[in-house]
């Protein structure tokens, strides 16, 4: 049976797997952003805590995805929930790091000028620091999303479903069509997500920073 015939007969299964995959990735990304961006902002206000948290985050990031999922399985059991928790936990790290460094690298000239014209701390954050750091934050989100989509395929191992299920089943019964039916949509999904976030990143780069780059 050729790959196209396989797709025709099992179209529904592939679409369902894709849908589960997208849901799982979106949900994890959403929570990761909601946790990591405020946490990153908070860290810029507490230098000592930042050093420790970022050092720990650096070590946690070297733990392989399969291991993290295994730990999730041992603590929370089988299913989609443990996978989503693990995906969130891992997705938080790149966004946290980029939010922190993005805001830290805002030139003091700008924040001092903002204070000088009478902005409150909150205004400095929302009107000066965050807009300048936004491209860096979005770059962090791109990293996280690509990781999350990648790890979500592994999450099939602990019963989360999604496109990884097709790859897994295909690998264990050596069904090439099934492997491709999982692997190709998963790859396209990750590439598409990366591309879309690149567009967002261009859109959120402040106008002043864009022209500066063009002149260089």
């Amino acid at each position, binding site marked *: 049976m050729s790959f196209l015939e396989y797709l025709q007969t099992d179209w529904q299964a592939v679409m369902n797997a894709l849908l589960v995959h997208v849901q799982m990735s979106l949900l994890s990304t959403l929570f990761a952003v909601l946790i990591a961006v405020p946490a990153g902002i908070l860290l810029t206000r507490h230098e000592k805590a930042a050093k420790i948290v970022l050092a720990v985050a650096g*070590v946690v990031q*070297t*733990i*392989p*995805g*399969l*291991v993290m*999922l*295994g*730990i999730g*399985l*041992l603590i929370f059991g089988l299913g989609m929930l443990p996978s989503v928790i693990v995906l969130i936990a891992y997705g938080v790290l790149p966004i946290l790091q980029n939010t922190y460094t993005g805001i830290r690298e805002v030139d003091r000239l700008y924040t001092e000028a903002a204070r000088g014209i009478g902005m409150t701390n909150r205004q400095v954050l929302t009107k000066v620091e965050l807009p300048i750091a936004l491209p860096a934050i979005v770059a962090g989100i791109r990293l996280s999303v*690509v990781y999350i*989509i*990648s*790890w*979500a*395929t*592994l999450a099939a*191992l*602990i019963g989360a479903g999604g*496109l*990884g299920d097709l*790859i897994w089943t*295909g*690998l264990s019964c050596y069904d*090439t069509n099934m*492997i*491709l039916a*999982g*692997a*190709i949509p*998963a*790859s396209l999904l*990750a*590439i598409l997500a*990366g591309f879309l976030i690149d567009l967002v990143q261009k859109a959120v780069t402040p106008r002043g920073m864009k022209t500066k780059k063009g002149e260089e």
Partner: protein
Amino acid sequence: MSDFINAVLEHLAVTAAGVVIAVLIGVAAGIFIARRPVFAAAVLSVADIIQTIPSLALMAMLMIVFGLGDLSVVIGLCLYSLLPVIRNTYTGITTIPPSIREAARGMGMSRPQSLLKVELPLAMPMILSGIRVAFVTALGTAVIGVLIGGGGLGNLVYRGIQALDWGMIIEGTVPIVLLSLLAQHFFNRLQHFKRRRKTNV
């Protein structure tokens, strides 16, 4: 115990093989696109797309072509390592101030001489940092190799997950985390060593 040591060594060997091949290809490609900027965007986006492909998907597709075993894992790790090496070689060379390159040419160096004696040494810290990123990422990704018949620490982790055995998972993970930290430290030292010598000259 000897099983464990073998697993660690095989893990290191598979990772190193993939990264070394990637460095050979990546540095050459990086130099090429630094010389011919027309191709830069195309080469970098191809490497970027390869890295975006989920690791399990890439490994599974490679398995179809190259069969079960370490070969497919090495090829997969090599493909994943290309982007950081190419990008850092390219940025390392293109961010050298033109005045330095012109001085090298002015002294009568040929283009290969200027590349070998001036540009590559100056770009080296950047290239090393690319290799570091590639190596640390590959150490973690190599774990997935177990699913397509590769050896290494992935076996311990995978068996641990199937047997719901904490001990085995930890036994497989601790060496990977330690090796990653060690590699980071090693490459950082190397990078700073280079930098110190550079400023002395």
